[in-house]
């Protein structure tokens, strides 16, 4: 039983109702963000280490040659996984992915996939041979907002990634042939509802007071959305979140693309 939930929920809700946050931020203010690309450049095709406040996430891109899906025989394949490592929080246990990490992985995946970020046609090699792109997100310290931190780490790692050289039917490890075929930089933003207020980038304890969340991933267009949690948003709130995202994303995109 998570005692923190009982402990923090009311205090945080009351504070938010007054328009205040524990660390003094504005309701829509994000914590300091740092992105280090190429963190595991000696082995991984691409990597990025992201710190969003105290949330620390590492994403790695691995590539291998595999068979395409039968309904898209000339397209590459992408798969996203998220691991909530026990080192990240005392309540994370080792074991098969729980529904939380699966949802986070799928939301991040759709944000990238639906934007057309990766040009899958350029990942075609030969009959029955395509490149498979694996996005693996390792949560190393959980202090809230794992979807945004994970999503930013994933896209940063993709931007950092290099295509492996391909020779005699196999990837040549340690040798590269240019970057991944990317067309855009999707940026996720998750809005969290606490009572009647909406905040961004909650810390772990603020998340205990969250009733519902809405993740909006944008490029020039809206590409993916996901509502989570058992609370609700009004239609106006949803529209406002979507419209705010375009501008916020273009600011953040500059930092991610650096």
């Amino acid at each position, binding site marked *: *039983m998570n*005692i923190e939930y*009982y*402990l923090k929920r009311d*205090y945080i809700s009351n504070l938010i109702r007054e328009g205040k946050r*524990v*660390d*003094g931020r504005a309701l829509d203010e994000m914590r300091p963000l740092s992105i280090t690309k190429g963190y595991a450049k000696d082995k991984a095709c691409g990597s990025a280490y992201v710190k969003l406040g105290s949330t620390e996430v590492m994403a790695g891109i691995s590539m291998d040659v595999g068979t395409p899906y039968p309904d898209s025989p000339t397209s590459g394949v992408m798969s996203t996984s998220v691991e909530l490592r026990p080192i990240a929080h005392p309540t994370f246990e080792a074991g098969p992915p729980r529904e939380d990490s699966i949802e986070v992985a799928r939301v991040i995946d759709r944000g990238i996939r639906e934007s057309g970020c990766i040009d899958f046609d350029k990942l075609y090699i030969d009959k029955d041979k395509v490149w498979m792109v694996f996005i693996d997100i390792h949560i190393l310290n959980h202090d809230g907002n794992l979807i945004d931190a994970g999503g930013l780490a994933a896209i940063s790692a993709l931007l950092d990634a290099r295509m492996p050289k391909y020779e005699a039917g196999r990837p040549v490890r340690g040798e590269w042939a240019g970057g991944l075929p990317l067309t855009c930089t999707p940026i996720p933003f998750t809005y969290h509802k606490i009572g009647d207020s909406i905040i961004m980038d909650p810390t772990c304890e603020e998340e205990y007071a969250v009733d519902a969340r809405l993740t909006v991933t944008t490029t020039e267009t809206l590409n993916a959305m996901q509502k989570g949690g058992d609370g609700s948003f009004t239609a106006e709130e949803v529209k406002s979140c979507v419209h705010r995202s375009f501008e916020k994303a273009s600011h953040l995109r500059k930092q991610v693309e650096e």
Partner: protein
Amino acid sequence: MSELQDRQIVLPGQLLGERIRCEGPCLREREGTFSTVRGLARVDKNSVLVIPQAGPYLPKAGDIIIGVVDADMGGVYSVDVKGPYRCILKQLRERGGRGGRGGRDGPRDRGRRQDDEEFGTYVPGDVISAKVAYVDEVKEAKLMGPRKLEGGYVMQVKPMKVPRIIGKQKSMITLIREYSGSNISVGQNGLIWIAGGNMALAQESIRMVESQAHTAGLTDRMTMYMRERSKK
């Protein structure tokens, strides 16, 4: 004898001295006594005391703790104090009272049950302050004198830093209370309850003391810092 300097940082496995009295986390072996943790060594002619810079909270009788009720086992409550062992809160017979005629502790007799009214009822999530009455053989602490702490915010610091946060003769905590105007209860276990006043200042100040606990001149720096911050 000890070759150490006073206030030297010692590490696990470091020799403290050969035939010398050592206190704190240490291990006596044939070749000498060794520190088992990273800590500050206080050395004088006859003894060495190791003050660990980190470590779990182990309750001892007399400690005031802040805890969170995490289970109700039918009037007996399990209290989470963020340590490796549970604390139990139930209406206690006061154990080991001196009692009797002319007892120094006055009219407290053995076996008086705490009043139902005075004891109260609790639900999971309640924050309480209480005193550790005693710790039994399986390291379970029994609590007494509970007080519910309503509202407010609970923060957690490393238990080893609590003495510095309180300060000599409560000097540091009094300083923080004055400048923030907050109601602050510090548990030996590292949980601290804050309510009212400038809670953000109280929290920040406590975090600063925690991270700079071992440095000199901290009280003066904290005074200056809080004076500046409370002007805004």
